[in-house]
C-alpha cells in the first residue's frame, strides 16, 4: 500500500546543529501515528519540514507516493495536507465563522474573485457553520476569537484544518494547556475523525495520546530511536532511557 | 588616463563616505530593527555643524569629532525619548524617523539658510599628491584612509570587545540576549549614538567634497539605503563592500551617463535582490 506520508533521509541543521537527523518513516493511509520525544527532540521542526514552512537540507518527503519536498506550503495544502499549530495562530480579530471561511477559501477557486462581495457567498458561510458543528462550536460562530475560552480556540484550530478536508492531518500538541474535561472532549473529537484522513500527532501528554495512537515514533535529538506499535514502544528500554534519563 | 584615475579616486572617496553612513544605518537596523530614515538628515546636520564649528576650531578632524559627538548625543536623546515609546510599532518607528528627518531638514534651513556652505579642505591636504606621473587629490585619499580605519575599528569593536559581543548577540537573537542579562536598553542607546555619530562625523568629513547644502540629506539617504539593501542588513562587511560598489557605480555613472546615473544605480541592487533577497552578506531574518 502506498504510504500516506513517507519520509526518507530527512536532514535539517541549524548552523551545524542537526535538528532533524536522517529521519525516515512511513505512515499508512488511515493510520493514527503519534510522534513523541523529550523537549528539543525536533518534533515541531519535523512538522515544519513536512509542511514546507522550513526548507530541508536533504531528503525526500512523499505524500501518497508523490514527492512534495520542493513544493511551497500552499501547494502542499492543495495536495491534501493540513496542520494545526502548537502556538495558537488564529485570526484573532475575526469571528470563529470568519476563521473557518478563510480556511475554506484557501482551497476554493473563489479566492481569486476581487469584485463580488464575500457576503454573497452564502454556501461558504453554511459550510463554515457545518465545520464548526463538527467540533461542537456552531453556537459560538458569531463570537470573536478573543471572546471564547482557550479550549474552544484549540478546537477552532482543528476546525480550520478539517475545513480543508485533508487527506493527511498533522496535529501539533492538540492537548496543550487544556483542562481535564477539555482533554476528554478533545480526545473524543480526534477519535471521531473519519478514517479517510491519516492523522499524525505530536504530543507531550502521554496518558491521553497513547490511547489514540496505533503506531508511535520516538524522536531524540532529531533522530528516530524507536518505532513500533504502542506496546512495543512502551516496552522498549530505549524509550524509558530517553524519558527517565532526562 | 588621468580621468580614470580621478574618477576611481572619487569613487573610492564616495564609497568611504557612504560607508560611514551605511555602517551606522546597518548597525541600527540590525540591532534595533529600525530603518532609521533620519540617517541622511543626521549626515547633513553633521556637515552644517562642522562648517560652523570650523569657524572656531581650525582642525577639520577635531570638528569632525566634535560634530560627531553632538550628533551622537542628539541621536541618543531621540532614541531614548521618542523611539523607545514605539518599541513594538515598527512602522511607527520608521515614520517617526521620517518625521524627525523633516524637522532636522527645516531646522538646518532655518539656522543656516538656503545657500550651500563650503567646507574648506584642511591645509595639510590641499596639495595634490604626485605619484608615477598621476596627480591624486590628497583629501580624497585621506577620506578613503579614514573610512578604512573606521571600518577596522568597527570590526575590532564588534568582534573583539564585550560591547561588540553584546551587539552580535542582540543581532542574532534578541530574546536570548535579554534572557542572559544583556542590558538591552542601554545597548540600544549606545548603538544608536554610535550610528548617529558616524553619520554626523561623515557629514563633516565629506564637507570639503560635497559642502553642506539643503537636500544633502535626501541625496545621501537613497544611496545609503541601496548600499544596505545590497550589502545585507546588519552586516559590517556588507556595508563596506556595498559602499564601494555603489561608490563606483554612482561616480562612473554620473561621469559617463549623467542623466541616467540613478537608473544605473538601480541595476546592481536589482541583480543582487533577484538572486539573494537578503543582500550579499545579509542574514535571513
Amino acid at each position, binding site marked *: 500500500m502506498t504510504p500516506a506520508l513517507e519520509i526518507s533521509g530527512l536532514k535539517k541543521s541549524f548552523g551545524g546543529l542537526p535538528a532533524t537527523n536522517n529521519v525516515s518513516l512511513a505512515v499508512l493511509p488511515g493510520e493514527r501515528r503519534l510522534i513523541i520525544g523529550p523537549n528539543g527532540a525536533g518534533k515541531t521542526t519535523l512538522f515544519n519540514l513536512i*509542511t514546507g*514552512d522550513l526548507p530541508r537540507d536533504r531528503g525526500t518527503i512523499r505524500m501518497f507516493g508523490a514527492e512534495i519536498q520542493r513544493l*511551497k*506550503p*500552499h501547494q502542499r495544502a492543495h495536495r491534501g495536507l493540513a*496542520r494545526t499549530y502548537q502556538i495558537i*495562530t*488564529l*485570526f*484573532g*480579530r475575526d469571528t470563529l465563522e470568519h476563521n473557518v*471561511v*478563510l480556511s475554506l*477559501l*484557501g482551497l476554493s477557486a473563489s479566492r*481569486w*474573485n*476581487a*469584485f*463580488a*462581495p*464575500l*457576503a454573497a*457567498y452564502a454556501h461558504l458561510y453554511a459550510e463554515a457553520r457545518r465545520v464548526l458543528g463538527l467540533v461542537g462550536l456552531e453556537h459560538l460562530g458569531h463570537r470573536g476569537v478573543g471572546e471564547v475560552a482557550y479550549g474552544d480556540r484549540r478546537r477552532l484550530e482543528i476546525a*480550520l484544518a478539517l475545513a480543508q478536508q485533508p487527506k493527511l492531518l498533522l496535529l501539533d500538541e492538540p492537548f496543550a494547556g487544556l483542562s481535564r474535561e477539555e482533554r476528554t472532549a478533545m480526545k473524543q473529537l480526534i477519535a471521531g475523525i473519519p478514517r479517510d484522513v491519516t492523522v499524525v500527532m505530536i504530543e507531550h501528554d502521554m496518558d491521553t495520546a497513547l490511547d489514540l495512537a496505533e503506531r508511535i515514533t520516538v524522536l531524540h535529538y532529531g533522530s528516530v530511536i524507536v518505532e513500533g506499535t504502542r506496546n512495543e514502544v512502551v516496552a522498549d528500554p530505549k524509550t524509558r532511557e530517553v524519558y527517565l534519563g532526562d | 588616463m588621468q580621468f580614470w584615475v580621478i574618477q576611481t579616486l572619487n569613487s573610492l572617496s564616495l564609497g568611504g563616505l557612504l560607508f560611514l553612513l551605511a555602517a551606522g544605518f546597518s548597525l541600527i537596523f540590525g540591532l534595533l*530593527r529600525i530603518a532609521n*530614515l533620519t540617517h541622511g538628515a543626521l549626515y547633513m546636520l553633521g556637515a552644517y555643524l562642522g562648517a560652523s564649528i570650523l569657524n572656531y576650531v581650525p582642525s577639520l578632524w577635531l570638528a569632525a569629532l566634535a560634530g560627531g559627538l553632538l550628533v551622537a548625543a542628539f541621536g541618543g536623546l531621540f532614541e531614548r525619548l*521618542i523611539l523607545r515609546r*514605539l518599541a513594538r*510599532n*515598527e*512602522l511607527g518607528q*520608521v*515614520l*517617526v524617523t*521620517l*518625521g*524627525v*528627518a*523633516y*524637522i532636522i*531638514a*527645516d*531646522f538646518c*534651513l*532655518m539656522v543656516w539658510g538656503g545657500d550651500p556652505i563650503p567646507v574648506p579642505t584642511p591645509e595639510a591636504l590641499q596639495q595634490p599628491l604626485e605619484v608615477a606621473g598621476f596627480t591624486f587629490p590628497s583629501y580624497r585619499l585621506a577620506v578613503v584612509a579614514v573610512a578604512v580605519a573606521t571600518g577596522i575599528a568597527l570590526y575590532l569593536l564588534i568582534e573583539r570587545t564585550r560591547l561588540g559581543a553584546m551587539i552580535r548577540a542582540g543581532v542574532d537573537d534578541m530574546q536570548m540576549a535579554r534572557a542572559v542579562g544583556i542590558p538591552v536598553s542601554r545597548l540600544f542607546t549606545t548603538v544608536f549614538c554610535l550610528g548617529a555619530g558616524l553619520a554626523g562625523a561623515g557629514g563633516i568629513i565629506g564637507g570639503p567634497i560635497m559642502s553642506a547644502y539643503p537636500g544633502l540629506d535626501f541625496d545621501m539617504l*537613497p544611496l545609503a*539605503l541601496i548600499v*544596505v*539593501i545590497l550589502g545585507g542588513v546588519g552586516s559590517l562587511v556588507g556595508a563596506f563592500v556595498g559602499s564601494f560598489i555603489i561608490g563606483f557605480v554612482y561616480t562612473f555613472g554620473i561621469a559617463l551617463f*549623467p*542623466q*541616467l*546615473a*540613478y537608473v544605473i*544605480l*538601480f541595476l546592481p541592487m536589482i541583480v543582487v*535582490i*533577484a538572486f539573494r*533577497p537578503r543582500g550579499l552578506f545579509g542574514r535571513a531574518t
Partner: protein
Amino acid sequence: MKSRVAPLAVLAILLIGYPWLAGEFYVNLTSQIFIAAIFAASLNLLVGYGGLPSLGHAAFLGMAAYVSALMYLHFGYAHWLTAPIALGATTLMACVFGLIALRATGLGFLMLTLALSQVLWGSAYRWVAVTEGDNGLRGLTRPAPFGISLDDSVSFYYFALIVTAFSIWMIARFVASPFGTALKGTRDQPRRMGALGHNVWLVRWITFVYAGFWGAVAGLLFVYYNQYIHPAALSLTSSAEGILAVIAGGSGTLAGPIIGAAIVVILKNYVSAYVRYWNMLLGFVFVVIVIFMPDGIVPGIRRLWARVGRR
C-alpha cells in the same frame, strides 16, 4: 450594507451641490482632496489591508503623470490615447516593482519601495533631456471628455468627483471580496494562510499592482488638475504625505484614508500659507500622530473624548 445607504446618499447630495455653495478656492481645494483621497485609498490597500508598508507610492502617481505629459508634449497624442498608455505603463512598472519589493516583507519591503521610488525621483531630476529636470513639464492640457471642457474649476470638480467615486467604489469592492478577505488574512497570519492553501506572495503581488494602478489614476487626475508636473511629485515627501493621510485617518478602514487625505490637503493649503517651514510642521504632525494617535485621528479623538468625559 443597508444602513450605509442613507448617509452615503446625503454625502452624495452634499458633494453634488457643493460647487453651488462654495467659492472657487474651496471647489479647487476639494478637487485636490479627491486626488489625494484616491492616492491614500490605493496606498491603504497595501498598508492597511495588506500589512505592507510602502514608502514609494508616489512613484505610481509620478510615472502616470509624466507619461501622460510626455506623450502629449513629444508626440501630440490626445488624452483618450495618453491616458491608457500612462495607466498601462505605470501598471507595468508596478508589476516589475512588485517583483522586486516583494522579495522582502516588513521593513525590507519598506526599504525596497523607498529605494525604487527614490531612483525614479532621481531619474526625473537628472534625465533632463526627457523630463526637463527641475523645471518640470508645462503647457499641459486637461482632457475634454465628450467635448466638455474641464478648464474651469467646477467642471473639473465634477470630473474628479466621478472618477473618485468610481475609484473608491472599486477599491471598496476589492476589499469586501474574497480576494480582499484573503489579503487581510495574509496581513494577520501569513504563515497560516500559506498552510491553508493561499498563495500569499501572489495575493500580495496582485494587490501591489492593483494599488499601483489606482495610484496611477490619481496621478492622471493630478497632472490634469495642475497642468504641470515636477519631480517633487515623485519625492519621498509626496509618498510620506500619502502615508500620513493613511495613518492620520486610520488605516484598515475605507473612510480613514479619505478623511486623512482631507486633513493633509487642508493643512498643506492653509498652513503652508502661514508657516514657512512646512516640512518641519509635517515632521511634527507625523511624530505627534504616530505617538499619540497611532490608530488615526477618528479613534484617537474618540478616546480623548472618552477621557475628557470621565473627568
